[in-house]
């Protein structure tokens, strides 16, 4: 801020010093008001007021509504006795996490109830570290992210050797990238999306049930991960399963997984396997199975009434090779 000559307003603190008896008599009086294109600047921002401020008796006067607006306060007029009531609209809020008191939050009583989530007490209580960028975006990470056993290779770090069905559709999966579009959320719990293969079906659209091949070169013994229907497809009434095929031989499967089910753990022996294929199968509410490579036509409207939100989202999470 530029250096400016600042003269404190005369009456600032005299409020407390002078007694109250100095009020003028009531009624209509002509007053001498000095206008000088006075601007009201709050935190370096010029506040526009509907009526012009002026100086009377060495004080700058503004309409009460303008002051309240500029300072985010509420203003109330009471007729008897004639009074104005001004209050800060932002107030502290008491916060408890499982009965433990945390540093206070703030509210303006209507549009926000917010907490200082970057405070160490919050980071410890929730195990989540938020970072906030200058645009107001918030990114959370867990202190101990879900991860694989030490020494594992993320399946997502391998380049697929073959993409089948929807996975080969470059409009759905640019550059054959199958992960990292969304954090997986299953029964309310979020999982980082970087290591999650996501397959989604949109209402009314023809989906080609997908699959993907990886060249393991016989280097691994076990494939681990978990498979679930994402909360985005909360009320999808069908089910989906993954079948794992090694060099043309079925190694195992997740079984059909429904919505509202905890993630099904995957632990498949891949000892000596050169080509691993992950095949999807979908079973409709009526029990009709559609296999990898075949076309599945989704219901026209999903349960939340939307025709554009996905009707089904599947998550193959934390896929890793040991």
């Amino acid at each position, binding site marked *: 801020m530029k250096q400016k000559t600042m003269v404190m307003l005369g009456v600032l603190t005299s409020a407390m010093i002078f007694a109250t008896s100095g009020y003028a008599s009531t009624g209509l009086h002509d007053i001498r008001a000095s206008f000088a294109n006075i601007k009201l600047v709050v935190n370096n921002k010029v506040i526009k007021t509907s009526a012009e401020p002026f100086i009377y008796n060495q004080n700058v*006067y503004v*309409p009460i509504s303008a002051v309240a607006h500029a300072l985010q306060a509420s203003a109330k007029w009471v007729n008897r006795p004639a009074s104005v009531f001004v209050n800060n609209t932002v107030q502290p809020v008491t916060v408890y996490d499982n009965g433990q008191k945390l540093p206070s939050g703030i509210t303006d009583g209507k549009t926000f109830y917010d907490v200082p989530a970057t405070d160490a007490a919050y980071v410890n209580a929730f195990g989540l570290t938020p970072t906030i960028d200058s645009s*107001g975006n918030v990114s959370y990470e867990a202190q101990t992210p879900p991860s694989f056993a030490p020494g594992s290779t993320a399946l997502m770090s391998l380049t697929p050797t073959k993409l089948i069905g929807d996975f080969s559709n470059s409009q759905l999966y640019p550059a054959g990238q199958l992960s990292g579009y969304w954090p997986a959320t299953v029964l309310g719990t*979020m999982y980082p999306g970087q290591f999650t293969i996501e397959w989604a079906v949109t209402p009314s659209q023809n989906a080609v049930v997908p699959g993907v091949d990886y060249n393991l070169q016989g280097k691994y013994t076990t494939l681990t991960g978990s498979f679930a229907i994402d909360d985005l497809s909360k009320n999808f009434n069908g089910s989906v399963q993954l079948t794992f095929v090694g060099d043309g031989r079925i190694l195992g499967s997740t079984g059909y997984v429904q919505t509202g089910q905890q993630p099904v753990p995957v632990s498949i022996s891949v000892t000596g396997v050169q080509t691993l294929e992950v095949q999807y199968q979908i079973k409709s509410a009526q029990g009709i199975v559609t296999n990898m490579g075949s076309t599945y036509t989704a219901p026209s409207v999903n349960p939340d009434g939307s025709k554009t939100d996905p009707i089904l989202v599947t998550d193959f999470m934390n896929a890793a090779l040991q």
Partner: protein
Amino acid sequence: MAKWLRLVSSYAVGIVLGGAVFGGLTYASAGIRTLPAHFANIGIHVNNNTIKTTAEPFIYNSNVYVPISTIAHGLGASVAWDGKTHEVLVSDKNVATTKLGTLNYYSLPVYSGTHTVLYGGQTYIAGFALASVADVPYYIDSAKNTMYFGTVPQTGMPLRSFIDVRDYGDYAKSIQGMVGPDYGWTDGAPKIDGILYSNANSIVWANSGANSQVPGVMYNLKGNYSLLTGSFGLDDASDAKEEAQLTILGDGKQLYQSPWQAQGAPATAVSVDVSHVKLLTIEFSVMQNSTKTVYTMGQALPSSLHVDIDFADVRVH
């Protein structure tokens, strides 16, 4: 892959940005003018303190005029006058600056429209956003000016604070674009045998038309609670042609079943041990008096019946 957006809570939207609400009027020219001002011994109260000042408010041109310095000081701001530029310079750390942005988890978007508030030198994040990412229920008691995560000591956490993980029957159908259980009636609180219950914290259901299916809902308690309480009955607005029953399951096993409740009968007090229960399912059933036919969760109910079910003030402890 589609860039779909998750549902955004009402706390995450509707931010009113304090900005240029007031229009810019052209000001009068500078100089001294005589104005008719109405004085009425107007008192000033700021943040519940009575401010004693010789700078008296008055009414002019239908506006109440106040000395800005007095008010600003009362609100905790500092004020200075720049005589050269004719500016009143207010520095107020208690002005909240709100920004809208995207909520991310490991850099992947969860939903857009979350907000941050800079206030008093500290940045605050929506309580709802933290609860979403942490997957804990979240409840605001505005009367007590308190936010609760996880549980509410003594009174328990209202079940409505949890996100439904699966819906059944009418609850799985779109009502105004949203699925999920109905909490509270739009035209009054639950009333069972003449007794009124908390509207906001009650799961309710009324059938409508020929396609209504008896509903149910599943929540993920993650094994964090020991007791579920509430009051179950038929609302006095039901038509007395049926009885209703409540069944509660924990991880697929039946934990509780209420007696059949008739219209006008007192509510049944529900108190169920939910220790170690992860997935909690609440199911309703309806029995038609004339035929004794029972309609369980998911089954279509005849439109000749009018059922208003109340599972009132449902909480977990």
